[in-house]
């Protein structure tokens, strides 16, 4: 596994900021700006489509909170969140997101020069993509039918099961973390407030 850059990071814990079962966050040695966090999946995937919903949400939430940390603690004026979805294998097999602190006039530019495509070409692209997207819901329904169960019942029972699983955990989580929460509550409230107020002011 030593050949994999990300597994090596996870092993050596070099410049590691955060780690849990699915996700790690590090400061890469090559920083695109002062305050460049790399959030990566711990598991290997060939492309983003292979990642479970839950795992992908977990990774993106981590990136979003990393952006908030850069904003609050490094006084970033904004952040970019950028990820490649396909060539993960070439890059070492881990889906990863670059979270980059931005300041006004920092000299960086990730923005493209906008293209203009002829109207009929735009229409053609739209209908091609839309045709595929129209299948997003349909595929799922088919899967449910294949299971030979009534869709509504399956969905609701699944929902209930996951609710039942989630409830005791979150309840207890609240209990045991009470003091922690109390201690951090004011702090976090302020953090969120300041983040929000500052960001709203910077809106175009």
């Amino acid at each position, binding site marked *: 596994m030593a050949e994999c850059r990300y597994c090596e990071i996870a092993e050596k814990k070099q410049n590691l900021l955060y780690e849990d079962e699915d996700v790690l966050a590090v400061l890469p040695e*090559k920083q695109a700006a002062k305050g460049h966090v790399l959030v990566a999946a711990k598991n290997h995937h060939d492309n983003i489509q292979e990642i479970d919903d839950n795992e992908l949400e977990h990774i993106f939430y981590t990136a979003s909170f990393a952006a908030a940390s850069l904003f609050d603690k490094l006084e970033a004026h904004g952040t970019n969140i950028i990820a490649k979805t396909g060539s993960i294998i070439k890059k070492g097999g881990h889906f990863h997101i670059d979270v980059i602190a931005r300041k006004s006039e920092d000299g960086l530019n990730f923005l*493209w020069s906008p293209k203009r495509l002829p109207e009929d070409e735009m229409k053609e692209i*739209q209908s091609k993509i839309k045709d595929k997207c129209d299948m997003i819901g349909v595929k799922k329904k088919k899967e449910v039918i294949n299971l030979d169960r009534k869709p509504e019942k399956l969905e609701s029972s699944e929902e209930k099961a996951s609710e039942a699983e989630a409830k005791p955990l979150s309840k207890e989580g609240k209990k045991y973390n009470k003091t922690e929460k109390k201690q951090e509550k004011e702090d976090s409230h302020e953090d969120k407030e300041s983040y929000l107020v500052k960001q709203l002011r910077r809106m175009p």
Partner: protein
Amino acid sequence: MQLSPEQQKAIEQQKAQCIFCQIIDGKIDSKKVYEDKLLIGILDINPASKGHVLLMPKEHYPIMPLIPPETFKQLIDKTKEVDGCVKEALLCKETTIFIANGAAAGQQSSHFMLHIIPRDGGDGLEMLDISGKEAPKEEIKEVSAKIGPHLNAVLARNLPALGFKAPAGTGQKLTKEQVLQLIDSNLQIKNIILENPEQFKQLVPKHPQLSQLFKDFDLDDILKQVRQKSKPKKPGKLSLDEAIK
């Protein structure tokens, strides 16, 4: 997240000016490719490349932290699916997902959105292939010290509530004092420990959060200290306390 009336008002004003809100309301034409209860996906009329899709919540959220969990999760799940559709439709293997938070990062509209940008070798979009400069070790240390503890605290607090596995607890180790404080503030746990310590000792290994909490400590020692701390107070003091109340 609760917004103050002023913030709410500011967002209402943004909404009234927002092109994307008007697109979502059907007042302005767009090239829609995806829609569900919470999200809409349209082609960018000034694309970075052919098939550039903007996926966004239908509700006007100026910044990412304002997006409620249900919508955020849906946005991420559907990013994956719409991204897959873009790849299939255009026979391309690579896309870049791009988000700008704040004007300094190039956010051009106050309506939060996520870009799905199809990529191809030599497409002139190399600025999206992030590469940095070797940073001085002191700088990495400084940034790490500034954001590391904050990020860990924020994730430890938020991820479990959002339904994700609790963090492993790196950099979040509690001291013995903190564990004792934690127990002291939690009447339910405290009572079990005081009334039935043996039962509590059996409970710990079966319970992931409890076993995590106590894994670095001698449980017997902790229990002993909890009992010592809560020794019944002298009657005189108790009545004094009550008198003060």
